[in-house]
Every structure is written in structure tokens, then in C-alpha cells.
């Protein structure tokens, strides 16, 4: 089992549009994820895969990233390896995210406030991670 600290969706403009925290040391997690954006920037263009695996780490916390075609980044902060689970988690979240995008009332790049999305993501996290 991966113990996940934080999941965040960052829009192409580097704005967090969705955050799911498990516990409270929130600002450190934000710092780590924010800093990892640099690495994502480097790596995203070197591969055609959307799942970039664990690209950065800080002490024992690792950052796994999934980049969608629209350059929205799903960033997961976790502390143990479970690459397959994380990959499937990202893929499922991607589907949910696409559904959000299909909503004509959702402005891409704005904050995701759907409680349904939140519930689904949390359920997925329990399932895959």
C-alpha cells in the first residue's frame, strides 16, 4: 500500500485547480509539489508517455506526475512505490477529469468544485493506492 500525502491537479498555467489532502502538513506538501513543477517542465517534453513516474523526491516523499494532452498535471505526493497502482489511479482520474471538461459550464483552467469529482477521486485513491 502506498501511503499518499497529497494529490493535486495543476492547470497549464501552474494554478492548482483541485487539491486533496490526507493530513495537515499541507504547506510542505505544496512546496514540494510546486517545486516539482520545474522537473515536470523538463521531462514532459522528453517523452510521449503521459505518466512520468516518480520524477522528484524530497527526503522520503516522492512526486509522481501524469501530464494530460492539455498540459494539465496530476501530481501525487506519496512515500512508497506502487507504480502500477499510481498509474491506474492517474488514468482513472484522467477519465474523471475529461468528464469535468465535457461539462459546458466548466471553464478549463478554473477550479474544480464538483463534489462528485471529489468523492470519486477519493474513492479511487482508496482503491488504487
Amino acid at each position, binding site marked *: 500500500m502506498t501511503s499518499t500525502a497529497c494529490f493535486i491537479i495543476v492547470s497549464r498555467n501552474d494554478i492548482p485547480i483541485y487539491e486533496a489532502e490526507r493530513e495537515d502538513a499541507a504547506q510542505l506538501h*505544496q512546496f514540494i509539489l510546486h*517545486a516539482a513543477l520545474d*522537473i515536470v517542465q523538463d521531462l514532459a517534453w522528453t517523452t510521449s508517455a503521459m505518466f512520468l513516474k516518480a520524477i522528484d523526491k524530497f527526503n522520503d516523499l516522492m512526486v509522481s506526475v501524469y501530464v494530460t494532452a492539455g498540459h494539465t498535471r496530476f501530481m501525487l505526493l506519496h512515500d512508497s512505490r506502487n507504480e502500477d497502482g499510481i498509474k491506474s489511479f492517474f488514468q482513472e482520474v484522467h477519465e474523471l477529469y475529461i468528464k469535468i471538461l465535457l461539462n459546458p459550464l466548466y471553464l478549463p483552467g478554473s477550479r474544480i468544485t464538483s463534489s462528485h469529482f471529489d468523492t470519486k477521486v477519493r474513492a479511487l485513491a482508496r482503491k488504487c493506492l
Partner: protein
Amino acid sequence: MADPANTPLGKMLLEEITPVVMVLSTQLVEQACLKNGISFVQMLSPFCDFTNIDVPVRTASDQPYRLRKFKLRFLYSSDVRQPNLEVAKERLKQVITHAGEKNFLESSEPSQFNDILSRPESEILPSWFQFFNKELVRTLSFSDHEAFDHPVACLLVVSSKDDGPINRFVDLFNTNKLPSLINDGAMDPKILKHYLLVHDNQDGPLDKATKLLAEMRNAFGQNDCQIICINSSQNGNIQHQDNPWALFKPDALPTENLGGFPNLDDLNEIKDFLQELSSKHIIPYMEQKIRVLNQQVSATRKGFRNQIKNLWWRKGKDETIDTPNGPVYTFNSIESQIRILGDYAFMLGDYEFALSNYRLISTDYKIDKAWKRYAGVQEMMGLTNFMLDQSRKDAEYCMENAFNTYLKLGSAGRRNATRCGLWWVEMLKTRDQFKEAATVYFRICGEDTLHSAVMLEQASFCYLLSKPPMLHKYGFHLVLSGDHYKKSDQIKHAIRTYRSAIPVYKGTTWSLIKDHVHFHIGQWYALLATYDVAVSHMLEVLASTCQSKSTQELFLRDFLQIVQKSGRTFEVVKLQLPVINISSLKVIFEDRRTNASSEAASVRESVWRSLEEDIIPSLSTSRSNWLDLQSKHIPRKYKESNICVAGEAIKVDIEFKNPLQIPISVSSVSLMCELSANPEEDANSSNIELPENESKTSTSTGDINSSLILSDVDFSLEGGETTLVQLTVTPRIEGILKIVGVKWKLSSSVVGLCNFESNPVNRRVVKGKRKAKHSPSNDLKFLVIKSTPRLEGFIHSLPKKTYAGDLRPLVLELSNQSKFPVKNLKMKISNRRFLYAGNQRELNVDFPACLKKVNVEKSGGHTNGNKMSQNVFHFPEDVSVQEETSLSWPLWFHAAVPGNIPLYITIYYETEGSSIMKYRTLRMHYNLQVLPSLDVSFELSARPSQSQEFLLRMDVVNKTSSECFQVHQLSSVGQHWDISLLQPVDSILPSQSLFAGQSLSCFFMLKDRRSSTSEDSTPPSLFQSDVRLGPRDSSEPPFDVSSSPLADFHDCERSCQGVSSQGYEYKVDFIFITQLPKGNIDSGARNTPLVLSHHACDCSLSSMSPISWVVDGPRTIQHNFSAPLCAVNLKMTITNSSGSVASVHINTFDSPSSNSQPKDDATASHPPENQTGWSDIPIASDTKIITNEALATRSSKSLSLESVPQFIWSGSSSTKLTLQPRSTSEIPLQICAFAPGIYDLSNYVLNWDLTPVNDEVNQGGGNKSSGSLQGHPYYLIVLEHT
């Protein structure tokens, strides 16, 4: 790439890894040197760096090469040992603190990245890093696992003043004083010795010294002894250009004259001595040693045989002693010698040779598991590779290997790892691998937080310098470094790093990060007691909505603490707490339009404008008075600005929102205003009287206090709460008033200011829009004019909620608080069905008794009719509201229809005091909720035979849920109708009251009185236009529906229901009056009885035609049929009840064939098998009245089998006549009967056609303009006369 030697790392290595010369000196030597403020080593130091010597060097290879740069390190023997850890740490801390102080003062506001990145690298990197790194590396010198710090030579220095210098020389090289390295056996004690005699020229001539030198040369050898002279200058005031010692004693005071005594000759002498020492002694000695060692090593280790042997016997070596830290090697072990060989070769710049030796030894150490030594050798291999600039990969691999190996050693190797890392970082930096360098810096971080902080900060700079710059990482590492600094109490450094991180996070939406940074900077500045900066940073986090409740509490608490500590009151322009919704800003002011209540102010201006249209003077007329005056007196600039009156409050509504989850308290909320004198009023000497102080501008705060009254509001907001606050400003003198903004106090410590102007949000200004194009600043600018009278208006006891039909008197109270009377009052009420002004004498009438009929006949019949016709109520000329009095005026109220009813009342009045404002209007607005009470409907049906009588059915349903209405009275309006009950009311409604949900049906007889009165002239007192439905026994008189207010309201109803007042001869209006004994609907909870009146207009028989007739004549005649024929004369009376001329055409027909003539649709129900004579005439649409006669017809139907008519119409078969409006005429009719029998004389048709007199007549809608009617049944019995 540049020559490795010229890179920062190369320079560092050439500086740090150089031969060490151990100095042993006597006390007197030091004393001589101290005259100059420096020690002996310091005196030599400036001259031991040789940049342009040219020494041929031949090491292991036969090919000599030339050494161009060389450096010696002179150290006292006491310093040749591992530095004390604590002392070293303390020293490093001082370095950092010092740098912190210095940089903190220099640090400017964080600039933009473009600025930073455009600057050269050297400027970005703080210079003290270099210094710190050097110091850090130096703390690790003289480790026993490395040989390059081992002294190569020993310089023994004795002063010429010493007694027995020769003995002193011997004593100096005494083992007691020698460093532990030598004593431990890690270093060869047999090193090169050089003897130096120092002569202080101030102590005497040189002769004695030269003599001593000769003695020394005898004792220690010709070449190894030398003499130098110092302090040759007598006065000690020699100023050296670029003082060579300044660099080496940085902490010296600037006033101190370093090296004042040695003159130029002395300096040259020292220089020459050192040059000779290095080139003639040390370098050759090292060459020599290399060659010797190389031979030894070659003999034991080189060659195939030795290698095999080494592999074979390596394990079994017994020279080494196993310790927990790996084997200990003495200086004469072959491993140590190889290491020395490598180090010497490195120092002499023969890197390839050094590398081969390092390679050789590293495998040995690895096999021996001497990890520290192994790491050290790997480190050197890396450096050598770097200096060779050949294999980068190898260099990095070696460094990483060394670093990891050091780390594996645990805390023992930690500091070595740091040094190794630093070198590695430099190596990576040289190759522009900044990202990798940063990770190495990050790995250097150990348990020492202070060092980690510096390393992290350096790492952050690496990220900044990497291409492309990795700003996110830069920010993150700065913040990490700041945290470490804070942990080791370096607050200034912490603040500096955080501040550098601000540009990274500027404008970011990663709110937690932003809050963290600003909050900590704020806190730390507070620790430094720099409160204003602290506050400015804390302000950034105050309104952070995404934080948890506890964090928000923490932020707010800390913020308030800081503010308290500062002991000042801060005025903050952009205080985010609470949030002000600028778009909610609403300014309510009163110029000539005044509002009685705040509800009136919120009504749209267009509503009032349409209401006031015909009471205020029109524009053309008013131009001659106040507008003209205004344009004269008021500068053009302010023409469009709003006008307000001195002494009257301007209200500003604004919304405050608490974005946090915790409650906040806000106090002293008030407006910020500027009141200035009207700039052109002085010049324009007008008849406006200016106050004395008007001439000077009153923008200063002192004046504002006296001339403005500002309201002060305190409130507290729960988490997430929004509240609307009304603030007022009352100018007391004339001038120009400008509302600048709002200010408030948060938790009674911080003053927040919000400027309305600066916010480019559209404001809603309710009033005063004379022009569509309006600059927003003008909306908040007011021209204050002299105070004028202002009426306050209030309607007493106007219910908020009532039942439909409620009728009651109200009192309007107008009060004038000013010193001037007002006159010419006019009033207009929007909804006249509900409210109208009464007569002054009705003011104190007793209600509802005043509605009752009094004996005086026609007392007040339509007294107000005149007023009703026009919409504006003019108060009588003599009515005026005097100063400081009030006027009460009666109003009548009637809740006409259910629903939510807005009532707008505007009162116009003229004033005498002001010349700018001739008149003002007072606007009152009320909202009524009228609930349905009784549903009353009437139905009229005609009695066919009685043209003037009708049957009236009244249906009443109580629609309320709880109320019980007492039925009181039904009245018909006008004098034309008699109304009477068909059955006593007791039988229908014994209780006389209608309970909730109950319905009631009543039948009445209605008689048109006009037709009868014309003949009978019944006295009017006997008229029964009212029917009492209430209890019989009560003697109180019925309500008078023909007097005010019932009649007036009835007229309103009529006009509202769209009925013209003409032509209601057959249309009846009813007023149904009930009482509610205990009205509990009124919010006032007064159990006053309510009188409810329900008005129904134009009840008419739906099929009733304007033409009615009655056939009159004998009913039974006896005739002797022996006579030729029996003629019967009949009389038909035709009445035209319509308002227009009617032409009536009566057709009689006898034969069945004539039956086929066209019939009116209204009589289409006539049976097709219409027999002549005995026909059944069903009465259309009225099945209730089935007369006995009709029954008789039916029974006699069988009689009419014969087809021969028994009678014929004689006389004219067709008569045409014209009837004037509302007239009656008679025409004679005659029949001839041929046989006795009963005849129905209904076989005629009456065609009528109305010719309208004017257009209005036909607008009644229900009126038919033409029609044809079947004759009424008329039975004539003809008997055989015998």
C-alpha cells in the same frame, strides 16, 4: 572549457593543496614582528604565493617540465593539527552571522527575476559563500588519512637577540612541540629543516647577527641557514602602497599601521628568501623525495611479479593494526608512501603521475576496507581527473564514490563528505551542471542546521543559475534554507532568504505557500522589532480564506500581537479584513427629492418621476427660477454634481464580508469625507449667504470635525458573514462635499482604509443622474447648499397586512423640523383604489360610526367627487406646515384587491427659505399585503313578464382560514333600485356570520324604481336601496353608501374596473359590507373591528337587451261569434333603456309559412316544428323561472292539431318606430279571433337596431347594437258569449 587551473575549483585547489611549511619560532622573533601588529607567519604570508617563478621540475619521468605557479603554506607547528571542532564551528557561525548582518543591511526589496537573471553570475551569488566554503574546507585539514597537509619542510626561526641561538634552534625542534601527526607516526619526522635568523635592526647593528649566521652555518650546514632583517625603518611610519598584509589580517582596524617598520629592503629580502626557499630547497626536496619513493614503490608494487605478490600476500599483512576505523598505516608503510607520492606529485602539478599512484593505492585501501582512506584517495582521484580535464565521467564517478563512502562512515565521515561535496559541486558548476550541483548541495545538508542552511541557499542559487532557471526549485530551497537559518537563530538570514523567495511566489495561487512565506517573514520581522514591515507582510495573509480555522486564528492573533507590540495605530490602505464589496456601494442623498423612509429610497427613480410628473413645475417654468439660479451660482464644473442640503444626512450603504471562518470585530466604521469651500462662490457675489469660515478651504481634519458629522458603526462578523452597513455623513456648512472612502478599525487596533475612487468598479448611485455620461467621481461629489425645510411624513397605523375590503381611516402626519414654513402642499397617491385624501373635518371622526346613515338626507353625497376626478390632491391654500410643527391630514384606506400592493405617495411643497431650491418633494412608500377575504359574486336574472324586476342571487364565500365575518349589509348604488330579501335572513344565515370556508347564497328581489317613481312618486324616504343582513333587532342605522368614503371608493372601483358611468340603467352596482369583530390580522395585534366593503360593479343580466316591452290588454274576453269577428285591442309598451336611439320594428305573422322568417340567434332554441298559435316558448338561459303559464302551454299543446289559425293579427303587420334614449312609447296592436279558445299571442318578432348617439355608448362591451326578439307569451282567453 577553460584551463582547469583557471576555474574556481582549480584556483581553490592550487591554493589549498600546496606544500606546508611548519614554522617553529622563538618568543623574541614574535615580539619583533608584533611591533608591526602581525605575527611572523603573517609577515611571510603575502610573499609565499609565487605566480611567476620558473622552476624546472623533474619528477618520476625523465622529462622535466617547468612549474610556473607555486605556493607555500606557512603554519605554526601548533596549528599543524586537526582544528578543534567546537572552535571551528564557532568560527563558521561567526562568519555566517557577520555575513548576515552585512547582507541584511544591504538587501533591497526583492526585484523581478528578469533583473536578477540579467546580472552576471558573480553578482547573483553572495560573495560570502566562497569564503564560508573555504573556511569549511579548512576545518578538515591535517587529517591523518591525507598527506598533502603534512609539512614538507620545517622552518626554524630564531631571533638574533636570543641567547645561544644555536641551542635555541636545537630546542625548537623538540618532539614536545612537534605536532601530533609526527608524534603519532603518521608522518615522517625526518623532514627538511631550514634555519632562519631574524634580526631586528632596531635592536642593533647587523654585525652580531652575521656572526651568528656563520656559527649556524657551521652547525647546520652551509645552505640551510639564512638571515633576514626586519624593522629597518626607524620611525615606523612607512606607508606601503597596497599594504601586502591588509589581506591577511582582515580584522585589523583601519587606523592600525600594519607593517610600519620594515622598509622596502626588508620586504625584498623576505621575498628573495622565500623564493630561494621554495625553488632551491623545497621543490628540489620534493622532487628528490618523489624519486626515492617512486623507486621504492616500483620495487615493491610495480611490475607483474609485485602485483601477483601483492594480491597473494595482501591479506596476510601484519604491519597494519586493525582498529574500528580500519587499519592504521604508519608513515613508512608502503600505502602511506604511495599516498605521499601521489600528493607530492599533485602538489608539483604532475597530475598523471599522481593519478597513477592514487589508482594504485585506492585498490589497496579498498581491499583493506580502510574506507576513510579509500574515500580520500577517490576524492583526490576525482580532483586529479578534473585537473587533467580528461575524463569528466571518471572525475564525477570518483567524487560520488568518495562522497558515498564518506557518508557510509556515519558521523565520522560527515564533514569529510561535506568537503568532498563542496569540491564536487565546484566541479559540476565549472561544467555548468547546476542542477546536479544543487542536488549535491542538498545531499551535503547534515545534522548541522546552520551549515545545511547555507548549503540549501547555495543549492537554490544553483537552480537559479541553471539553464533554464528552475524558479520553483529556487523558491523551495530558499524557503527550506530560511527554515534552517531560523532553527539556528539566524533570523536575518532567514528573512533574507524568504524575501528572495517572494518574487517566486508573487501572484501565485498556491495559497498555502504564499501564506507560509508572508506569515513567517512577518513573524521574524516582528522578532527584530521591525514592526511596520512585519505588519505589511502579515496583512498579506490575513484574508486567506483557504486556511483552516485554527490557522486563520493564529494569523489573526499574531497579527494583532505584532500591531500591539508596535504600539502604533496602523492605517492600512489595503486591509483585506473585512472585505468590502464595492459594487454594493449605494449612495442615498436627498436634494429636492426627500424620502420618508429607506424603502422609499430604494424605489426606482422612474416610478417617482412618473408619479411626480404633473405636480412638480415643468422644466420650462422652472428654468426661470431655480435652474437659472443654479447655473448662475454654481460653477460649470459642479453643475452635474449632486446637490445635498446642509444639515441633512447622506447615507451610504456598503457591504462588509468576513472571508474567514473565525469571527472578527469591526469598530468605528465611518466615511472619509472632504468638505471644501465652493471655489467660485466668493467671486460670484450672490445672494447666497456664506458662513464666515467659508472663504478658507476646510479640507484640514480639524475643520472637518466641526463641519461634518460622521456616523460611527460597530459590528462583529461571524465566519463567512456578510453585513450591510449604513453610514451617514452630515455636512453642516455649504461647500463641496466629497466622499473619499470608508475607514474602519479591525479588532480596535488596525485602521483599514478603503478608497472608493481608486477602485474601478462600477458603483450604483441610486439618484442624481441627470446625464447619462457621468464620471464616477462626480457621483460621490456633492454640492452642499444652505439648509432648507424638509418635511417628514408618516402615515399612522397603516397596516402591513390586511384583508381585502378593509376600510379604515388613517392619519398622515407631516412634520416640519426646520425654521421655515412650507406651503402649497400637493399630494399624489399612486393607487387611488387603496388610498385617498379625505377632508380635514374627517380628521377626528368616530369610525365606523361616521359611515352610518344619518337622518340628514343626502348629507355628503359625492362630496369628494370633484377631488376624485383629478389625480392630484391639493391641500387647501391656507394649509401650511409652520416651523417645528406638524400637520395631520386624514386619509381613507380601502384594501380593494388582494395581492402585494405597493403604495407610492409623493407630497410636493414649496419653501421660502432657499433660493436655490424652490420646492421639494417628499416620497413615501409602503408595501401592503392584502389577503383575500370574501369572494362575492352576483347574478341577475330577469323576470320575463316584469320588465323592471329582477332576481338577484348573491354568492359569498369566506376564503380566509380562520376569520369569521359578520354579514352586515348589501346596498345597491344609486337611487334607482329597490332591493329586498326574498326570504328572511334568519332562515339562510341564522348566526349572521360567515365562518372560515363557509359559503352563502342569498336571493334578492331587485326593482327598478325609475319606471315606477315616474308614476307613483314614492317618497324617497321609503327607498329600500339597502338591505340589512345583520341582526334584525339592532337599531343602528345602516352604512351610507352614497356618502364619502364609500361612494368615493366605489367610483374608484368603477373606474378601475373599466366601467363608464353612463348607461347603467340595467346595470347595478352593489356594495356588500361585512364586519370582522376581532381582526387579528394586523401586526399591531389590536383587536379593532374591521369594516370590510366589497364592491361589485355593473351586474347585469347577460342576455338582457336594451329594449324591453310589455304587452298589455284584456286577458279574458267574451264574444258572440255570431258577429263577424272578434277584434281585440292590445297595447304594447316598448322601453328603450339604452343610451342611444333605437329603431324598433315589430313584425307579426300569422301563417306557418311566415314562421320561416329569419330569427335572431338568441332565440334559436325555438323549436323548428313551430306551430302557429300554441307554441312553447322556452325561456332562454333562465330555467329557474318557469311560470305557470308555460306549464299551461305545454298541457294545451295537444289542442293545436289544426293547422288553421284561429286568430290573425289585424292592423299593421309591421310597425316601425324610433325610440329616443331612455324613453318609452306605446303602440297599439290588434288581433281578430275567429273562434273561442286560448291563444298565445307570441307570434311576433321584435327587431331592434341601436343607432349610437356618440361613440362612447357602445364601449360598454355588453351592449348589442341590434337584435331580434321573439314575442313574450301572452295568453288570451276568448269565450263564446252566450
